[in-house]
């Protein structure tokens, strides 16, 4: 997979977008500004050239006018007649004070000078250069600046040759002062920023739109003088940069310069650059501000949606407002849908969990979950209840969990659990062990669970299980075992008694029929005693019923038998022994005593004395109206049973063979019955 590009916020992307759009526009604005500056400059340059052209044209026209005057005068009859005074007067009139006329001959002698009265002219010309150039070219000449001999001032001449028969005879000149030129400069009607300069072939300033007085006759600056003709150059004049154009007239080797300060264009360039810069800054500022605002308008609902998605992931509640962005609204709608679905499914999950919890509480099983790598057990509330622990013990390590196991079971349980984790047997386990609750109570628990393993390595990852308090079950199991043991014991005890009865009966009876009858009778009394005991779950039997049951087989309708005494319960083993004892007494009575006769009487009565934990019973067996009493000569089985039985009952027996019948007094002790 390619490395992801660096991510930026939407604001940054918007800034990029705006810059991409605005950049070319800004360049275009720059180009337009530049173009307008260039146009301005071109216009100015053209204007400079126009001004130059107009100036040069004016100069030429001025010379033309002078030349016309000169040519008119040259055709004057007074000149042809060489009537100099007349010519002087005519010239003076013709010029009307605009300059003065000088006429020199080919040798340079001044013939007429209207600046002065006729005849006062200097002898020779003050401008021999013009004479030389006229002679050389044969054409009109405009002179450089020179000091007039007549005026003693800097002047210049416009001169034409006058020929006679193809030979130069005279040169006629109009003498002019720079002031006349200055009028031409002023005639251009330019604002004071313009500087117009005219200089002669020697580079001396003839006229200047500014500082005329100071600069007249001084040398024009070299670089201005060297400037090419008819083109715009940029030169420093009077300490500032100027656009300069230099031109030359048709008639002279004079030059005229037009200068305009470059600062105007420069300031325009600067202003344009400033404007452009400000535009860029403004646009950039607006771009950033609006990109930020729009970015925020875009990202704040997105951030809200992101936060909502996070909250959804954590299962926390969240709120979302509609935004003004369709795509974000789609996300919000999807999130709200997901929230509803999560709520529905989590409600279903909660219901299911609640049902499970209710079931777990009803079943009283505690759940636990063990993360093997983290060595961390999580216990359910029910498990904590089983342990008697608080919610602070909801999580624990394996060893901390072992701390709850009863010390007697701890090592075995730890070993088993470690074996289970180590694996081998499918991972399902079932353990029973004791725990010691925090309150010190010891309980039995059943711990069943399942180990979940990494399918590839087989390593144990987690253990999930439930713990059930089986203390009651264990107790019931123990009771059951005890009951079985007890039953076994009783059966064996009873068999032992039966065996003893058989042996004793056999020992005292020679005749098989007699043995059978006696043995059956004794077994019968044993069985009836058992019946009595079984009726009350082997807890004991009422003395009256024990007596009645023992007598039942021997009492006939014509016997007078009375049984009287308070209610008292005889415990199980005592019941068996007492039944056998009463059976022997009854057997004896039936054979030799009161029950052997049809009208015999038997009174059985007892009293009780409650001693707290025990009850002492005095039972009296009294036979009357039977056959004559013959005391036995030797102690038989019956009397032995009575004596031993009385000992077993913790009492004594006393047999008295009275004339009226047998009297047996039995005193014994039974525990006070709880029921």
């Amino acid at each position, binding site marked *: 997979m390619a490395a992801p590009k660096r991510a930026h916020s939407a604001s940054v992307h918007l800034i990029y977008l705006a810059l991409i759009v605005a950049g070319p526009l800004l360049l275009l604005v720059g180009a337009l500004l530049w173009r307008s500056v260039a146009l301005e400059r071109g216009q100015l340059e053209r204007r400079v050239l126009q001004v130059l052209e107009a100036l040069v044209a004016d100069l030429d026209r001025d010379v033309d006018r002078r030349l016309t005057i000169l040519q008119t005068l040259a055709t004057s009859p007074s000149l042809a007649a060489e009537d100099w005074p007349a010519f002087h007067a005519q010239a003076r009139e013709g010029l009307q004070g605009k300059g003065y006329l000088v006429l020199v001959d080919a040798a340079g002698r001044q013939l007429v000078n209207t600046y002065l009265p006729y005849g006062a002219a200097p002898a020779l010309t003050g401008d021999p250069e013009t004479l030389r150039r006229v002679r050389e070219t044969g054409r009109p000449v405009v002179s450089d600046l020179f000091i007039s001999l007549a005026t003693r001032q800097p002047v210049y001449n416009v001169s034409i040759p006058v020929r006679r028969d193809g030979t130069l005879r005279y040169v006629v000149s109009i003498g002019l002062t720079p002031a006349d030129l200055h009028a031409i400069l002023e005639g251009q009607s330019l604002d004071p920023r313009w500087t117009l300069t005219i200089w002669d072939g020697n580079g001396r300033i003839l006229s200047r739109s500014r500082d005329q007085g100071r600069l007249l006759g001084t040398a024009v600056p070299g670089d201005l003088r060297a400037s090419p003709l008819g083109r715009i150059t940029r030169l420093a004049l009077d300490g500032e940069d100027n656009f300069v154009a230099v031109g030359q007239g048709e008639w002279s080797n004079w030059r005229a310069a037009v200068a305009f300060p470059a600062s105007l264009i420069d300031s325009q360039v600067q202003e344009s650059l400033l404007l452009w810069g400000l535009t860029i800054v403004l646009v950039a500022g607006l771009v950033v501000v609006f990109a930020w605002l729009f970015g925020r308008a875009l990202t704040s609902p997105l951030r809200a949606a992101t936060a909502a998605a996070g909250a959804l992931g954590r299962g926390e509640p969240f709120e979302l407002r509609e935004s003004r962005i369709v795509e974000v609204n789609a996300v919000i709608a999807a999130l709200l849908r997901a929230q509803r679905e999560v709520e529905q499914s989590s409600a279903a999950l909660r219901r299911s969990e609640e049902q499970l919890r209710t079931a777990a509480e009803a079943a009283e099983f505690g759940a636990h979950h063990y993360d093997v790598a983290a060595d961390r057990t999580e216990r359910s509330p029910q498990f904590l209840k089983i342990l008697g622990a608080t919610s602070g013990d909801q999580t624990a390590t394996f060893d901390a969990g072992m701390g709850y196991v009863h010390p007697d079971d701890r090592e075995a349980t730890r070993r088993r659990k470690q074996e289970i984790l180590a694996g081998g047997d499918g991972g399902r386990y079932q353990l029973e062990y004791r725990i010691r609750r925090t309150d010190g109570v010891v309980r039995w628990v059943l711990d069943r669970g399942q180990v979940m393993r990494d399918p590839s390595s087989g390593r144990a990852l987690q253990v999930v299980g439930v713990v059930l308090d089986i203390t009651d079950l264990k107790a019931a199991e123990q009771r059951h075992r005890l009951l079985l043991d007890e039953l076994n014991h009783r059966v064996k005890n009873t068999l*032992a008694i039966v065996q003893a009865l058989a042996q*004793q009966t056999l020992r005292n009876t020679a005749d098989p029929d007699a043995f059978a009858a006696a043995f059956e009778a004794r077994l019968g009394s044993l069985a009836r005693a058992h019946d009595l005991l079984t009726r009350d779950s082997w807890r004991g039997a009422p003395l009256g019923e024990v007596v009645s049951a023992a007598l039942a087989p021997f009492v006939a309708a014509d016997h007078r038998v009375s049984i009287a005494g308070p209610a008292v319960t005889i415990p199980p083993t005592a019941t068996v022994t007492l039944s056998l004892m009463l059976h022997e007494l009854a057997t004896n009575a039936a054979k030799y005593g009161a029950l052997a006769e049809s009208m015999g009487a038997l009174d059985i009565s007892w009293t009780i004395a409650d001693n707290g934990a025990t009850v002492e019973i005095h039972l009296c067996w009294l036979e009357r109206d039977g056959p004559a009493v013959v005391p036995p000569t030797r102690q038989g089985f019956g009397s032995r049973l009575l004596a031993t039985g009385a000992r*077993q009952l913790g009492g004594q027996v006393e047999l008295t063979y009275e004339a009226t019948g047998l009297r047996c007094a039995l005193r014994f002790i039974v525990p006070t019955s709880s029921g």
Partner: protein
Amino acid sequence: MSLAGMRVFIVEDETMILIVLEDSLATMGFEVVASALELDEALAKAAQITCDVAVLDINIAGRSVEPVANLLESRGIPFVFASGYGRAALPVRHGGRPLLTKPYNAEALRAALLKVLAKSEADA
């Protein structure tokens, strides 16, 4: 060895069984010097009587005969146990003693008594 004249002490809480036991032992030639039907009586007699061997029912009216066994052991008197319970009912300390499981016959009783008497004689 002869059992004739050997003095025996019986602890048995069941009258009929005691009677038969007395008769059986008498038949075998023992002299039954004492018998007890309950624990306190048994303890009192065990401390005083002179006898060669004893037969102890383990469960005496719900109480263990172990104190009597301990007393007899300390006096060097051999004894056998009798019980309707299994071997598990034997006091741990006396786990190695012979046990007669009720109901038992006279032959088993004789064999057990002979065994402990022989062992006692060998130890002596």
